[in-house]
């Protein structure tokens, strides 16, 4: 599977793929590294700057991997959002389920 896939169909974007896993994983490691790295960097320790740099690199990779998929999914979902919102308001008014 292509990791930096740029063109996604709506159906493809709706499925859970390795891209979601990688984005989550890179995100967690970036969070860990930035937490540790900022402490080190403010104390002018080399390890601090290295951690921050790697965290930013991971964040950028995460963005490259997940952004095309998120865009495709969002576009497809937004096209149907008005219809879904209408259903939601019916639920609030008990219309969807009355008598069922």
């Amino acid at each position, binding site marked *: 599977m292509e990791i930096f896939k740029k063109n996604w169909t709506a159906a493809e974007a709706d499925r859970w793929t390795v891209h979601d896993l990688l984005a989550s994983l890179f*995100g967690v490691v970036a969070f860990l590294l930035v*937490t540790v790295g900022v*402490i080190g960097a403010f104390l*002018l320790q080399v390890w601090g700057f290295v951690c921050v740099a790697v965290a930013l690199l991971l964040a950028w990779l995460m963005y490259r991997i*997940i952004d095309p998929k*998120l865009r495709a999914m969002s576009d497809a979902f937004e096209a149907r959002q008005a219809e879904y919102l209408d259903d*939601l308001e019916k639920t609030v008014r008990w219309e969807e389920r009355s008598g069922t």
Partner: protein
Amino acid sequence: MQEAATGIVFTPLDWVWTIMLILLMIVCGVIFYRLGKRSESDFFLAGRGLPWWLPATSVYATHTATDTPMWITGAIYQCGARGIWYPFFAAWTAISAFVSTRIFRRSLAMSQAEWQNLRYSGLGAELLRGWLAGWQTFMNMFVLAWVSAAMGKICVYLFGWPNWLGVVLFTSVCAVYVLVAGYWGVIMADFQQGVISFLVITLVSCWGVYVAGGPLGIVSKLADLGESWRMNPFHFDGFWGLDSGSFYAMDFITLLIMSTVGGLGMGNFIDWYPEAQRIQSAKSVRDASYSIWAGGFVSLIRNSIWAVAILAFFVLYPNIQSEAEYEMGWFRLGFEYLPAGLIGIFFAGIIAIHLSTVSTHLNLGSLYATRDLYHHYINPEATQEQLVKVGRWNTLFLLIGSFVLGLTMQSITSWLIFALWLQAAGIWIPSILQVVWWRFNSWAYLSSWIANLVMSWLVVWVLPELGLLPDLPNWVNFWLLAGLVALVYIPVTFMTKPDDRDHLVRYYAMARPLGFWRPVHEDAVKKGLIGS
């Protein structure tokens, strides 16, 4: 010039900056009056049309309350840099951004209580919605009382004002733009306040580092004190153990799992509830994901900046024993060392931190009371005009309720810490299961809530008090509670029927949840609602 009992001097220049920044924050909120009154969706979600960076700033601003620096200061002063893992729970946003945030945004639920109605069906779903709506209405009032009381204490410390004045004054100022413009006011003022508070936190912390001798000065002074371990975030007292005063690798692992894997679920952290509102206010699924991720990321950077400032404070004052005294460390760095003019900016930053928290909880509590209790149960046919009006009344009700709680019964607010903690223990796994497993039903989730309330009470207070259970470290308490509550909800899951399949299929086609949903997926394909 005003001098408080602590010797802090407020010059006229400081007051000018403070007042000007407060006015700026209020005006930035109030000018959105016309947008806020358009509809229920505008009053509570800013019309679901915000670009990612606005809710992201709000996520960060809301995560920063007046008591946050005290709490983080306490953890770092006591434990050194490893104390940074206590507030690491903000990292739930790393996985949530691409899992639960996405699923929740696609459900379009205005509140977490409403989501229960979409995910589950029948009486169980309604009971969950009612329970969570009541819980959240009260909890938001409670948090308001808590942070207002903290502001009261700061004003007593700074100016020697009577306590009630600090409690009432700034929270009331905030209520002006929340009442007038609803969530539009909250989000726009949060943007202002988020930027101001981040700049002020960085400024004061850098100043503290400078005063303590600069970065390398701190490193060498820690070495001279024989306390170099305090710089190491991975310095543990062994892999595991049962001494509640120690910090083990198991504490770190538990906090790491809790904060990251927790991102798969919904409602397992108290922060989820305000963030759920921010997720729905984003204009697309993509914007929602980035807002949650970025908000969490900046919150962690802020924590680390604070941590360095507290190491600086430790170097300056290494022998403070009283928790109440060292908890004020970060405030002392600002008020004792900043020059005239900057103290006013610092105080304005503290007010920004306070207002961003207060505004969020005023509007959020009102959202649950209005959308879930009033609109859904009391008057389902209400017009948009009526709903906005009720939203404003509920905001006012929460404000007054929080004053009553904050001023008359401060000892009750000590319960809040326990309530926040218990929310993350027993219902941590059920909150994930409800997202990732189709068979987990409303009765199971409701039973886990009730069981958690009883078990946490027993494990944390009653049994230790009776001498039947030793005082356990946090990581053991967490897993013990998770296990005990599982003894209730797992049998309940299998002894009760699954939720209505048609209802599940509709939810699945719309939200496309992750995990064990194969039977529902197959039905949705058969019905032609989704592709294979």
